[in-house]
């Protein structure tokens, strides 16, 4: 079993529904996004195109963040998920500078004391912020808590354009494997030998 994701760039409409679904599912504080959709304007007037690129932790097979982590807080599960043990992280941010995808977020001390409406927390924030710690590094977990229950990650579940597909990369008959084979899935920064588990279809 090796979980992975395929992102179909031709399908992504840049609605940021995945960004909101992720924030809602994980209850991250303001400014913390495990996933988001970046855009790029290319071409010259009048032939200008806006393209959308969803980004998230790539759950690399050769994860540089895991290699450089001095505490062992970043670890890899047998199913390919790269996770952070919040109780072990000391907040040195070596993983932040090692991640070529810039998808790690440091929660500054005191960041969990303020929600979206200042110091007054909504009941939702009050509950969800207990799942986080400040002074440590966090990142996308591929919604491990959902995946363990047989559900899809929240971003995949929510995407209205079916631009995100989640599945087992080890299974040659899974949708993700078939899409990668048939449409030539590309890994971001493949030259870095990180072997990301996120593939992009263009």
């Amino acid at each position, binding site marked *: 079993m090796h979980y992975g994701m395929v992102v179909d760039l031709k399908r992504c409409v840049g609605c940021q529904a995945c960004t909101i679904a992720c924030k809602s599912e994980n209850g991250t504080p303001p400014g913390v996004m495990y996933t988001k959709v970046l855009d790029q304007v290319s071409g010259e007037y009048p032939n200008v195109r806006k393209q959308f690129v969803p980004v998230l932790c790539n759950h690399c097979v050769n994860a*540089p963040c895991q290699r450089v982590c001095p*505490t062992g807080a970043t670890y890899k599960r047998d199913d390919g998920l790269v996770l952070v043990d919040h109780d072990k992280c000391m907040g040195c941010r070596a993983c932040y500078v*090692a991640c070529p995808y810039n998808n790690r977020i440091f929660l500054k001390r005191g960041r969990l004391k303020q929600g979206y409406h200042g110091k007054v927390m909504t009941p939702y924030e009050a509950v969800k912020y207990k799942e986080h710690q400040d002074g440590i590094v966090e990142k996308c977990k591929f919604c491990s808590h959902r995946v363990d229950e047989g559900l899809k990650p929240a971003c995949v579940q929510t995407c209205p354009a079916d631009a995100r597909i989640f599945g087992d990369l080890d299974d040659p008959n899974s949708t993700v494997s078939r899409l990668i084979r048939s449409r030539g899935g590309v890994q971001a920064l493949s030259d870095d030998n990180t072997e990301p588990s996120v593939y992009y279809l263009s």
Partner: protein
Amino acid sequence: MSKSMPLVEGNAYVLGFRQQVEWSALIASAFFFGKVGAGLFMISVVTQSRLGMLLGLLIVVGGKGGAHLLYLGQPWRFWRGMSRPGSSWVSRGLWAMTFMVVMGGWALLLPAGSSLFMPVAVIAALFAFVVAIYDGFLLTSSNAIPIWNTALMPVMCMFYAFLGGTTMTLFLAHFGFIQLAIGERLLSAVEMALLSVNLLIVIMYLATSVTAGAAGKTSFNLLVRGPYAVPFFALAIGVGLVFTLLMTFFAGSDASPGVVALITVADLIGHYYIFYLLLKIGVFKPIFGQLKI
């Protein structure tokens, strides 16, 4: 494609080059104190100065250790940083610091004339050498930021540590705090040689950074043409290397204490700023640099 990519600031939802923002003044301070302290310790072992060794240890423990603790998000978990010396340079650095302090402390506790002093001090100096250069390997190991990913980084750390140690030793000797076992004239000549070598290494480093791909060029431009150009040329190069070299050359080993103090301050300013600026200009590669959408 990379030519049209912008330098993205903050959390903007735009594809482009992203500057690293987490390693900054405190990490630069830790690197600075680590190299100056370890350098002073190593030179003091050579010159057999116990006070120099003690000061070196205090700078490493108080300065480097303190800056790291202030920087950590969860400082009370610092001991967990020793868990992964097999793959993490942070762990290796922490182990080296620990051994340097233990062995250095042991050497200093030995009575004068003890036959164990030099062997223990040399072992401590070997660990001090690791403390001086490990941050170079730490930066080099980050493939994500091409301007750091060069073999010259540990070399630069090593020579800056030797320079910092020599400058501090000359300062202590001029003010009568320590007696040198080797000639002050020789140490002044070493200082000038180290300043020249450091200047050469910085030039070589800049020359290689231009070839480190689009992100490397972006970092280079930030340093020599962008917002960091003034502190780089004025403080890191001008004050830290050129001014110090000229002052050392013209004043020589007979310089007045005031001049030596000025040389020391100028050298330390340059030392701090070079690594502070190298951290600030760290730019990640664009994640889709090679993917046509």
